[in-house]
C-alpha cells in the first residue's frame, strides 16, 4: 500500500471516526447521567441535518449559520424530550423508558419524512469535494473540515467538563445523582442540559455527515455504529467513547481496502463480539468482580 493511499484512508477513517466519536459521546453522556440508552439519539443526528437543510432552503441561510441554528434547535428538542418524556417516566421500569425514547425517535423520523419529500438532498454552501494537495499527498478537504471541527468541539467539551461549573455539575450527576443533589446541584436542570448537549452533539454530527453522505431520512442508523464504538471504548467511560469512535472509523477505512461493505460490517461485528468476550467492559470501562 502506498503512502498516498494509506494517508487518504487515514484521513477518511479519522473523519468518519470523529463523527462516530461525536455521536458515541452524546450517547454515553446521557447513559452515564441517567442510566438510559437514548434510542432517539440517532434521529437527533437526522434532525440536525434536516434542520440545517430547512434553515438554508426556507430561510436562505448559508452553511455556518444554518449549522448553528440547527444545533441550537436540536439541543432545545433534546431538552424538551427530557422534560416531557424521560422525566415523567422516571418511575417506570428501565425497559419502558428505553422503548419510549425509541417511540420518540421514530416519531421524529416520521415527522421529518412527512415534512420533506426529497430522498436525498444537500445543504448548499459546503466545501467542494475537489481534492487539495498537501505536498505529494492529496486529500478530500471535506474530511479535513470534519476532523477540524470535531476535534475543536471535543477539545472544547473536554475543557467544559473539566473546568466549568456546569460541566463539573454534569459529571457529578453522572457519577451519583443523589450525592449531587445533596451538595446542592439542581439535578433536574442538569439532566435537561445533559440531554440538550447530547442532542446538540448529535445534530452537529449530522451536519458534518451531510456533506459526506447527503441529507436523507436514514442517517440515524449511524447510531448503531456509534453504539459499537461506545461499547468498544467501555460504556462507562466518556473518553473511551471518543477513542472507540475514532478506532472504529479507522478500522472501517482500512478494512474497506480488502473487504466489501457487507463483509466488512460482518468483520466489525465479529471483532466486537471477540472484544467483548475478551474484555467484557470495553477498553476503558470499569470491570466488576464476577464469579459464577
Amino acid at each position: 500500500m502506498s503512502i498516498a493511499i494509506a494517508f487518504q484512508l487515514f484521513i477518511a477513517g479519522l473523519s468518519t471516526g470523529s463523527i462516530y466519536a461525536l455521536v458515541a459521546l452524546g450517547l454515553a453522556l446521557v447513559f452515564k447521567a441517567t442510566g438510559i440508552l437514548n434510542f432517539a439519539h440517532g434521529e437527533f443526528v437526522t434532525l440536525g441535518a434536516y434542520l440545517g437543510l430547512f434553515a438554508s432552503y426556507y430561510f436562505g441561510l448559508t452553511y455556518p449559520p444554518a449549522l448553528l441554528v440547527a444545533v441550537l434547535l436540536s439541543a432545545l428538542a433534546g431538552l424538551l424530550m427530557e422534560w416531557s418524556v424521560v422525566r415523567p417516566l422516571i418511575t417506570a421500569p428501565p425497559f419502558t423508558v428505553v422503548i419510549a425514547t425509541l417511540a420518540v425517535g421514530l416519531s421524529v423520523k416520521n415527522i421529518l419524512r412527512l415534512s420533506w419529500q426529497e430522498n436525498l438532498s444537500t445543504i448548499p454552501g459546503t466545501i467542494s469535494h475537489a481534492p487539495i494537495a498537501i505536498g505529494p499527498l492529496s486529500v478530500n478537504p471535506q474530511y479535513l473540515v470534519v476532523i477540524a471541527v470535531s476535534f475543536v468541539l471535543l477539545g472544547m467539551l473536554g475543557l467544559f467538563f473539566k473546568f466549568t461549573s456546569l460541566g463539573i455539575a454534569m459529571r457529578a450527576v453522572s457519577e451519583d445523582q443523589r450525592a449531587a443533589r445533596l451538595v446542592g446541584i439542581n439535578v433536574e436542570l442538569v439532566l435537561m442540559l445533559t440531554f440538550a448537549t447530547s442532542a446538540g452533539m448529535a445534530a452537529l454530527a449530522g451536519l458534518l455527515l451531510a456533506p459526506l453522505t447527503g441529507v436523507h431520512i436514514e442517517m440515524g442508523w449511524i447510531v448503531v455504529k456509534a453504539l459499537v464504538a461506545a461499547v468498544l471504548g467501555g460504556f462507562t467511560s466518556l473518553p473511551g467513547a471518543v477513542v472507540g469512535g475514532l478506532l472504529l472509523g479507522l478500522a472501517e477505512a482500512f478494512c474497506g481496502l480488502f473487504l466489501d461493505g457487507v463483509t466488512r460490517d460482518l468483520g466489525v461485528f465479529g471483532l466486537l463480539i471477540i472484544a467483548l468476550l475478551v474484555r467484557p467492559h470495553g477498553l476503558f470501562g470499569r470491570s466488576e468482580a464476577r464469579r459464577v
Partner: protein
Amino acid sequence: MACLAAPRRGVSERATEQALTFLLAATVAVGVALPFFVHSYLLQMASFALVNVIVAIGLTVLIGQAGQVSLASPSFVAIGAYLVTHLTKVLGLSYWVAMPLSGIGAAAFGAVLGFPALRVRGFYLAIVSLAFLQTTSILIETLQTYTGGVRGISVPRPTIFGSRLTNFDFYFVVLAVTVILFAVARNVSRSPLGRSFRAVHASENVAASQGADVARVKMIAFVFSSFYAGIAGALFAPLIGFIDPLEFGLVTAIHHIVFIIVGGLGSVPGAVYGALTMGVIGELTNGFKEYKELIFNLALLAVLFVIPRGLSGIAASLVKFARRRRGPSAEQTVREV
C-alpha cells in the same frame, strides 16, 4: 396433555388469578369462533398475530423472567422459517415433522447465542445479540442457495391427507400451537426452572450461593425462547407463503420487544395480550396512509405513559387495590414483627 402448574396464592391473588383464567378462556373462545365470522384475508392477519404471540411468549421468558436481554429474536424466527422451507421443499419431509424440527433447530442456534451470554450481561449482552442479529441477516443474504438471498424464497402451504390447507384450516393449526405453547410456557414459569430464571435475574451471585447452575439456567432460557421463535418462523413461512429476508432486522426485533413491554415484562399472559394489542393498533392505524407510522408511534408512546408497567402491571395494581380495600388484615399487622 400436561395439566397446568397451579401455585396457591393469597386471597387477592387468587381472585385476580380467576379473573385472568376467565379472560384467557374467553380469548380462546373468541379465537375459535373468529374464523366463522371473518373474511379469509383477516384470518391470515389473525394467524400472523398469533405467530407474534408465540415469539412474544418465548421472549418474555428470556428477557422478563431470566433477565437476558436479546435483540436477536427475528434471527430465530428466520432460522425456523428457512429450516422448515428447506426440510419440506428440498428434503421432502412432511410439514408436520419439519415444523417441530425447525423449532429444535432454532433452539440449537439459540444455544450459540447463549455462550456469550455467560460472559456478558445487560446492555453488553444486548449489543452481542445485536451483532448476532446482523450476522444472521448477512448470512441469509450470502447463503443464497438455501435462502434465496435478497430475493426471498417461496413456501408452499402444507397438506393434510392430500389437500392443501386454506387460511381457514391453517388458522386453527396456528391457534392450536399457540394455545399449547402458552400452556407450556406457563408451566415452565411456575416450575423450579422458572424460579431459577427469576433468581438468576435478581442476582446471579445470590443464586449461585444457593447452588444454582447459573450458566445452565441462562442457556436453557436462550434455548427455550429461540425454540419458540423457531416454531413461530416455521408457522410464519407457509402462512405468508413467502420469506422476505428484510423481515428479520432490527425493526422487527424492536417490535418484539414492544410486545413484551406493553404486555408487561416477564408475564406470559401479558405477552399474549401485548402482542395482540399492538397487532390491533397496527391494523387500526393502517387507514391513515402516510401518517400511519407516526400515529402508531404516538399511540405506542401513549400506551407507555398510561401503563408503564405493561398490561400485567394493571393486574398487579388491581391486587394492591383489592388488598387495600379489604383493610388491614392479620397479614399486614404481623408484617411489623
